């Protein structure tokens, strides 16, 4: 369904050209962020992250699975995302949309490339490994679902407990310590309109912008990137945005649990 843009593109352009945003934020400011984690009993890890009015829940579950044939000693990491119909009048019921698939894959890429999870430690026995499932449940959409989902996923991982394994089977309800992680991955997404780019686009801004760029970072590296939308970005844009992302990543990591 076509959504009526609440702020017309030219109004947004004019605002941005003078360095202002519809909600009086700075060009590199996040909206208020909250993170809750570890509050569910059934998933092995869970968290809810909110950025402005966007709210995303991430749940983690372990299962025993067969490994991929070309990587027989490695555990399985699988990320999925649901843009729930209750999250937005723009979301419909039905099979996963391109947006939800892109969202899942971008969040997955950040976590996988960064190697914060040692998948080799998930090996159990011949043809048996642990699979870690990350499920992203988008509950409320007001823009920048990528950063919100990645934050929820990272917080969920930080709250995840390793299940107790006996005889190659998971004993549900019993745990053996926390999931070992080598660092924290966070993402920063920028919107671009004309020559201006702005961090953490709200839904209004997303409706009017040309394109977006997401950068996933660990303390030392850039580990994933994704450009979405029709417009173009220049090389200089990317380098500048990476600097800003690295700065902002410190703030984001501080909000995550230990």
């Amino acid at each position, binding site marked *: 369904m076509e959504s009526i843009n609440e702020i017309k593109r030219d109004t947004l352009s004019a605002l941005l050209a003078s360095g202002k945003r519809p909600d009086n934020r700075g060009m590199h400011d996040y909206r208020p962020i909250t993170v809750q984690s570890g509050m569910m009993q*059934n*998933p092995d890890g*869970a968290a809810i992250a909110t950025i402005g009015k966007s709210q995303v829940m991430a*749940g*983690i579950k372990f299962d025993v699975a067969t490994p991929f044939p070309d990587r027989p000693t490695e555990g399985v990491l699988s990320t999925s995302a649901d843009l729930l119909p209750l*999250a937005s009048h723009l979301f419909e019921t039905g099979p996963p949309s391109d947006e939800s698939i892109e969202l899942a894959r971008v969040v997955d890429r950040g976590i996988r490339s960064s190697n914060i999870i040692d998948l080799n430690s998930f090996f159990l026995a011949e043809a048996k490994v642990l699979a870690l*499932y990350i499920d992203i*449940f988008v509950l*409320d959409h*007001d823009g920048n679902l990528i950063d919100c989902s990645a934050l929820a996923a990272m917080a969920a991982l930080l709250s995840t407990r390793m299940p107790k394994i006996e005889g190659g089977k998971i004993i549900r309800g019993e745990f053996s310590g926390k999931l070992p992680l080598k660092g924290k991955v966070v993402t920063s997404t920028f919107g671009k309109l004309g020559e201006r780019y702005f961090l953490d686009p709200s839904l209004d801004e997303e409706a009017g912008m040309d394109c977006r760029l997401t950068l996933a970072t660990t303390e030392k590296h850039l580990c994933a990137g994704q450009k979405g939308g029709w417009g173009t970005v220049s090389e200089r844009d990317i380098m500048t945005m990476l600097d800003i992302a690295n700065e902002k990543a410190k703030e984001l990591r501080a909000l995550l649990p230990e």
Partner: protein
Amino acid sequence: MGGNAANKPELLKNGKRVDGRRVDELRPIKIVARVLNDADGSAYVEWGKNKILAGVYGPSECIPRHDQSLYRAIVKCRYNMAPFSGAEEHGRSGPNRRSKELSKVIREAFENVIIAESFPKTQIEVFIEVLQSDGGTRCAAVTAAAVALADAGIPMKDMICACAVGKIEGEVVVDLGKEEDNFGESDMPIAFSPRTGDVLLFQMDGLLTKEELARGIELARGASEKIRAIQFEAIKKVYEEPREERFLIIK
């Protein structure tokens, strides 16, 4: 029903159930209304360990057009469980057959009470997501959806709710938990319109005598009064503590 007989726990001992409840005692229920920003109405219910979120959109233009009715709003309902909601394995995304059946019976319960004639040619959508399940999710779902509809201002003949009753160790009990549901002798979720006492949703499996059935319905009816009071409190809180931005907070 359908648990493995080998690890069946003792469901009833000295009048106390596995979690210490009496036969006529409900699990703790907490309801918060208006927790989402985009949805027209929303509600979050914690019922024992169940955690259920409901969101409502409407009345809005009916899409696809050919579904619309010239006389009334079409009520659509989707009940769905999160892949991480169960205590056992990781589930699939999207509604399975059970979820589709529940979507239908829940929709039919609401079609009775929503005054759909007020909004011909439109649709009213009810979305229910089970974030964590522990037995009796469809009852918690109906209860949450009713609050979400009231939050959205959709006119209804009553605030309905639901509760499951069942039989364990020969005793009729109210509000089955997951183990009681798996290992008990009968499970009967019922939704009521407390104002009239009418039954809007009724499902049952297992074996019951006529007396047990009557006792079960009576227990459920009593429970529905208590649940409705909690629903009303949740709505009142929206106005007693107004917030501009809404958050789902799970402790």
